[in-house]
């Protein structure tokens, strides 16, 4: 029986600040905020704050007032494994608490896991894996808003001479520039996401025939993923921004229940002739999956007595959304291994039907084939070289609801319920996308396992893309979900592992990966459409034929060079056109992992490098409008405009003023570990097998020309296309840890 205990302690701290303009004195502040002679109120306000000697303005670091928590965090993990020939088990329990750098933010997780492997008789074997997890994420209030409440949106309009910190008596100053104080908001609000999740699977294998050349087995697997998620948000009426909508106090409660369940049954037969010249494995099977999700949201405003329960509000909005998906698939595959396991050929086909398609009874077929050959010791320095190639097709299902054309019955007008037509419709032949991929590559082990190299080249063609065809709104319906168009991706992936040093007491393992891909919309049967963003005047993502799907387009002003190029007939210098201003796809990405072991010490560090990719830095746009960007007032030699004014002058006409490169090099992790000597361990406790002490740091350094908080940013969350838009994100943090690991 093996037992393992891991205990680590650490803390998080803010790793990058956006910065804010320093105002030298009241004159500078008044020139920025109260230029009109009639605005004496703001001038009075500025004078009352900037009252240091000489009219100087105080400077507060508002980001630090918001995000300077350094909370103690921990992680504890205990696991036990063991068993006999017939029964093996693994059990573990973990608890983790990551503090957040902003008040009332953080992440906690508790999880238990139990895996059991049991032989039932000589021919049957069953495996059970279960995992039960509870997580609580306290998320804060970040990214875009239109209400002046999100942390960095407020900071973008608040100059640095305003004090937003806590006052004596546990109160907060009112922000005179924006009716919202983010330090107060963080201290008093709640945004908790509480998830209980069970994932389990049961696998049973029956070796029906195991005689001579034939080995026939039947395998059945069942899996279950069930979670309940509760999001509770509370904004008490004491918050400075709450009374702005006339309904002070807001409480939100969302309950989601999800059940994913699948069963697979398959029969696998392997034929190996007595000569052992080859082995042929045939598999056939079927798979059924069922997914159900039910989300109910309650938004309650104007909370009586400032109570958090949603029944305390006078304005209560309730919505519910359900989805249910049923899939059925069949597969058959043949695998041929020959030539002393040097040659491997496989071919297979899958047939799938789904309730998500317009025709739920139709089967869609997806074939695949692959081959690989291993050369053993082809040259002295190559231990083994595998050459491989594969072709496969797969499908991407439509989302639940896309095939329906519905009526909306949940609306009311002045309290009276009415029905309105919906504004989306689905094509009558809505079907899965078809993804065809060719890939080829080599895997090589070199120099007596001192190096290994993997190299893959691939091309993927996706046809029948699921596209929201934007209809002319005068028809009364905005979108039709249709299949059409073609997307092509080509890429290269490589990984190299090296052991540059291998001595008795010093080893160094080095591994690097490289990936590069380029995508193109090769065919689009409908007019180009917007896939994300805020509009052409600021920058948006547009899907159009002949362009990268992740291209950013925006308004741009034609220059003399543009007209001279002849690409804009009918236009003149100074005309505004919408054209490409960037692309969210990086040129390439590389990572570097190093593991150096010297005696009992080992050092591990991981570097992550991204080259290229563009970000639309709208946080800087908001800061420019608030005149608080750190470089706003910097002069431009030979011009009266300042740096910030020059950028702003391009607002809506030169949208690439706010597009920046997302190139970065990040030191993601450094860990130094010390293995305690076995004698020392035994002297402490006879039961100890090993002990390890380590210190590590995560997200330690970021080197990037990007002026925003972090080049890995997405206002709209996890998106395939519309990423890399930066609007008031959560500030990045680094963490430091000390851990003790014991085996006993």
């Amino acid at each position, binding site marked *: 029986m093996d037992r393992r205990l891991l205990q680590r302690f650490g803390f998080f701290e803010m790793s990058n600040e956006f910065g804010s303009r320093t105002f030298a004195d009241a004159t500078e502040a008044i020139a920025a905020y109260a230029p009109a002679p009639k605005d004496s109120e703001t001038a009075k306000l500025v004078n009352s704050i900037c009252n240091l000697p000489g009219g100087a303005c105080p400077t507060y670091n508002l980001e630090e007032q918001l995000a300077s928590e350094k909370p103690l965090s921990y992680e504890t993990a205990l696991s036990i494994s063991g068993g006999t020939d017939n029964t093996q088990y693994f059990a573990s329990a973990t608890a983790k608490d990551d503090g957040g750098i902003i008040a009332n933010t953080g992440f906690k997780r508790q999880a238990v896991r139990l895996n059991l492997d049991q032989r039932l008789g000589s021919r049957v074997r069953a495996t059970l894996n279960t995992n039960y997890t509870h997580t609580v994420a306290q998320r804060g209030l970040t990214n875009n808003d239109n209400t002046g409440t999100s942390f960095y949106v407020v900071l973008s309009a608040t100059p640095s001479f305003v004090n937003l910190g806590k006052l004596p008596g546990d109160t907060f100053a009112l922000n005179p520039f924006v009716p919202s104080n983010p330090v107060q908001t963080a201290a008093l609000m709640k945004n908790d996401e509480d998830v209980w999740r069970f994932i389990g699977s049961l696998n049973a294998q029956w070796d029906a025939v195991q005689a001579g050349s034939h080995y026939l087995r039947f395998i059945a697997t069942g899996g279950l993923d069930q979670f309940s998620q509760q999001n509770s948000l509370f904004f008490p009426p004491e918050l400075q921004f709450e009374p702005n909508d006339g309904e002070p106090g807001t409480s939100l409660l969302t309950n989601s229940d999800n059940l994913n369940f699948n069963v697979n049954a398959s029969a696998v037969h392997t034929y190996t002739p007595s000569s052992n010249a080859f082995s042929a494995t045939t598999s056939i099977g079927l798979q059924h999956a069922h997914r159900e999700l039910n989300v109910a949201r309650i938004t309650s405003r104007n909370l009586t007595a400032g109570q958090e329960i949603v029944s305390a509000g006078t304005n209560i909005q309730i919505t519910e959304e359900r989805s249910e998906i049923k899939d059925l698939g069949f597969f058959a595959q043949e695998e041929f291994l020959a030539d002393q396991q040097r040659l491997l050929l496989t071919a297979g086909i899958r047939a799938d039907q789904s309730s998500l398609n317009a025709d739920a009874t139709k089967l869609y077929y997806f074939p695949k084939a692959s081959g690989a050959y291993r050369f053993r010791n082809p040259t002295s320095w190559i231990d083994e070289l595998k050459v491989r190639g594969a072709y496969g097709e797969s499908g991407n299902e439509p989302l639940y609801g896309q095939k329906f054309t519905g009526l909306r019955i949940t609306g009311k007008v002045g309290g009276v319920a*009415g029905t309105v037509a919906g504004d989306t419709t689905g094509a009558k032949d809505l079907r899965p996308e078809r993804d065809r991929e060719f890939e080829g590559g080599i895997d090589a082990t070199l120099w007596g396992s001192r190096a290994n190299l993997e190299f893959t080249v691939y091309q993927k063609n996706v046809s029948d893309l699921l596209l929201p065809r934007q209809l002319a*709104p005068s028809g009364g319906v905005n979108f039709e979900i249709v299949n059409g168009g073609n997307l092509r991706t080509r890429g290269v992936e490589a990984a190299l592992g090296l052991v540059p040093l291998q001595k008795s007491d010093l080893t160094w393992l080095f591994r690097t990966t490289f990936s590069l891909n380029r995508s193109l919309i090769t065919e689009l049967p409908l007019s180009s459409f917007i896939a994300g963003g805020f509009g052409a005047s600021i920058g948006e993502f547009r899907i159009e034929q002949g362009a990268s799907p992740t291209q950013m387009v925006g308004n741009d002003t034609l220059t003399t060079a543009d007209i001279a190029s002849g690409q804009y007939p009918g236009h003149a210098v100074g005309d505004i056109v919408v054209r490409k201003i960037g692309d969210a796809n990086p040129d390439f990405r590389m990572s570097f992992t190093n593991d150096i072991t010297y005696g009992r010490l080992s050092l591990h560090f991981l570097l992550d490098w991204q080259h290229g990719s563009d970000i639309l830095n709208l946080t800087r746009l908001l800061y420019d409008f608030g005149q608080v960007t750190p470089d706003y007032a910097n002069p431009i030699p030979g011009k009266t405009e300042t740096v910030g004014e020059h950028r702003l002058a391009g607002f809506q006409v030169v949208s690439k003023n706010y597009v920046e490169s997302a190139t970065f090099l990040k030191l993601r992790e450094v860990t130094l570990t010390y293995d305690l000597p076995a004698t020392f361990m035994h002297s402490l406790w006879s039961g100890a097998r090993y002990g390890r002490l380590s210190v590590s740091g995560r997200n330690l350094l970021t080197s990037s020309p990007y002026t925003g908080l972090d080049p890995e940013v997405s206002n709209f969350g996890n998106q395939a296309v519309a990423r890399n838009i930066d609007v008031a994100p959560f500030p990045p943090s680094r963490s430091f840890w000390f851990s003790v690991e014991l085996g006993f």
Partner: protein
Amino acid sequence: MKTLSKYSLAACLGFAVLAACKDLDVPNLNSPDLGDFQNNPTRSQVLSVATGLLLGTRTGIAPQNGYVSLLGIVGRESYNFDPADPRFVTEMLLGPLDGGSPAFGGNLWANPYRNIRSANLELAALEKVPLVNDAEKESMRGFTQTIQALDYLKIISTRDSNGAPIPTSIDPLAPPAPVASRDSVYAHIVRLLDSAAKHLDSATTLTGGAFAFPFALSPGFDGFTSTASFRKANRALMARVQAYKGSFGCAACWDSALTALSGSFIAPSGDLNLGVYYSYATLSGDEVNALFDPNARAILTHPSIVADAQLQAGGAKDDRVVRKVATLSAPKTAQGLSSQYQFVIYGSNIAPIPIIRNEELILLRAEANIGKGGVADLAAAVADLDTIRVRSGKLPLYSGAVTQAALLDELLYNRRYSLMFEGGHRWIDARRYGRLGTLPQDATTTATAKRFTKFPFPAFECDPRSPAPLGCGTQVGF
């Protein structure tokens, strides 16, 4: 043999599971299907869709970037200083209005067209639905066409000389209808209103008297829920449309306006606020009136409203300013603009927004008489203008010249203050009387504000059309 039977056992199990799982159909769990409504409408569905037309026509009116607010900005009735979106100043004042901005220049289009389609779906369903008698059907046709006319009026008020398409098909996949000229759209609106009135009359005839609509109307239509009373609201809208056409140069339209007014709910000594309204509520699924901005977080009154007001006898400003505008403790500023005034017209987030009221009808009668221009007409106009001056503005009686030009100035002043921040009236009136040039050009930190004559077509409307019609792209101001 042992092996074979095991094979067949497995195969049987497989097929059994297969057969059981073949039914993979999952219906729409979140809403009823439109196809069912189109093919087999039921009585409760057509009644609910009729109420839904009031929901649809209300969409986009009250948001802080909706019909009242955006037309208020271009008409210099209001500002929007929302710190989260500088485009309320940079696009709506400096311009150009951008059809590619769905929240600004490309706004105020999709929602009314969605409701126009809902009305067409309702009219088609009324042909088929069982258990609804002919009188009820006629009454609902009258209601549906009136609301459809109101939606077209809102569209053409924003796009003006760009025109607007008049869709004839309820199939959204049909090619988009060609863009019709402004005058064609107005002719269509007149046709709809007259056809609606005929249906309402036919309903009354079939039952031998007026009766209440079989479906529920929102509280904003209280007092206008029978075929006879609702017809008055229909005629009120017709009066507005005829007056607009008169100001475009249609001399005969002034008389049509007066005829329509005589069939409407005009009442010079009655409640000026009598009329039909968009309703708001805080119930689940309902909308609140976002023009209610008690702390002036975003919506401010344009200072010229206070500066240009005439004075009451005692020296106080026009009572419409006293009632509708309040002074803030400190001015709010954004991008160099400043205002120390906010609207107090909408007292809560469930305050209704007028569609058309008695006060406007009295002013429309005055306008029609001014347009006709005869001595008796102008005298009648002075009488109506005085009614408004005294009852609404607490101003002294009109003492200026009784000429068409002078009375037109007085009319536009009264329309500006009586209908302040209710539905973009100042901008629409300034445009149709060629006075957009009189709107102030406020100076921001980067440029001076421009005046706009119309909104462009949204980019979404232009992209599927080839070639793109005039009116696509951006609208530069002057």
